């Protein structure tokens, strides 16, 4: 693709980065309105680039809608000042990602995404958020709003993210891509084909993944069951290596 579209991609990334910077938590109303406008410009430019990339391969509108939803929701995940809403916007990211997987012919992965991510991991997140932020302003939560309402070094972080995204996106847009190739095993159904690949080519990796899950489960139970003394009661500050060692594991 010619160099013009690469520059369009850079401009879109810059507008998006500025929008994210303006939308970062200490947000006044005027700033968030400007962020909304810039974000709309960036997303619109990106949709035009996507349209150019897609060429004649069809399904433009569905894919454009899904990518719009995914990126907008991801921007809200990282800029919303209340963690519960961040988690709920992340559900939207997962759903639109699984929609893209369906469009790409990965039905099994789409279903697994909805079940594992939206159904299991996100429930764990929401559970921990609820556990850590009960309503009622008792002492440990008095400052809970302050650190959510303040971003840490937003300028430098947005600059780093802009350089990363602009570089990768420039390379992607600048290359010639072949049209999507339908995989040769699609005739038997995606789930069957994935199972075949997993259990023939990646059998050892599947076993290792199972072992890893079990080790992680045992580790999480061991960590969460430890009796952790509060920092502000009793002995003030044990040296960093001693924090876990003084507590009995079970």
């Amino acid at each position, binding site marked *: 693709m010619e160099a013009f579209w690469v520059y369009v991609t850079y401009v879109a990334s810059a507008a998006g980065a500025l929008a994210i910077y303006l939308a970062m938590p200490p947000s006044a109303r005027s700033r968030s309105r400007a962020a909304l406008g810039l974000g709309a410009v960036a997303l619109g430019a990106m949709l035009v680039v996507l349209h150019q990339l897609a060429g004649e391969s069809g*399904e433009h509108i569905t894919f454009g809608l899904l990518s719009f939803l995914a990126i907008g929701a991801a921007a809200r995940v*990282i800029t919303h000042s209340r963690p519960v809403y961040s988690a709920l916007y*992340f559900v939207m990211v997962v759903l639109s990602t699984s929609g893209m997987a369906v469009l790409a012919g990965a039905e099994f992965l789409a279903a697994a995404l909805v079940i594992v991510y939206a159904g299991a991991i996100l429930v764990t997140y929401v559970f921990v958020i609820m556990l850590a932020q009960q309503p009622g302003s008792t002492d440990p939560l008095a400052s809970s709003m302050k650190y959510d309402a303040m971003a840490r070094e937003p300028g430098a972080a947005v600059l780093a993210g802009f350089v990363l995204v602009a570089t990768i996106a420039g390379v992607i847009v600048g290359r010639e891509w072949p049209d999507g190739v339908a995989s040769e095993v699609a005739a038997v159904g995606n789930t069957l084909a994935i199972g075949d690949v997993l259990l023939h080519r990646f059998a050892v990796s599947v076993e290792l993944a199972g072992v890893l899950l079990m080790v992680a489960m045992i580790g999480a139970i061991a960590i969460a069951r430890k009796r952790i003394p509060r*920092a502000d009661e009793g002995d003030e500050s044990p040296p960093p290596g001693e924090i876990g060692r003084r507590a009995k594991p079970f």
Partner: protein
Amino acid sequence: MVNGAGMSLVGAVLFGLGVVGFLTRRNLIVMFLSTEVMFQGVLVNLIAMGMRWGDLQGQAFGVFVLVIAAVEAGLGLAIVVMLFRRRGTLDAERWNTLRG
């Protein structure tokens, strides 16, 4: 069938947003959520690469990414709960003694 280039573009943007979120947010839980956004970007990219080469390895790796994301969420959230019990706050800045 969509084009692989568009999907990897979306994946790159998702990954970049996750990086920015991880660097800027101070809430430990939201930092972990940002890593999940990065995982989503990688997953979209894997699906796109699988499409581009026309075989199923990309999707198989996507399944493994899902496993790693589950492991990371479980262990990470256990550590977050432990840190919250210790200090009573989720502010990452309160744990800057580990900077050395």
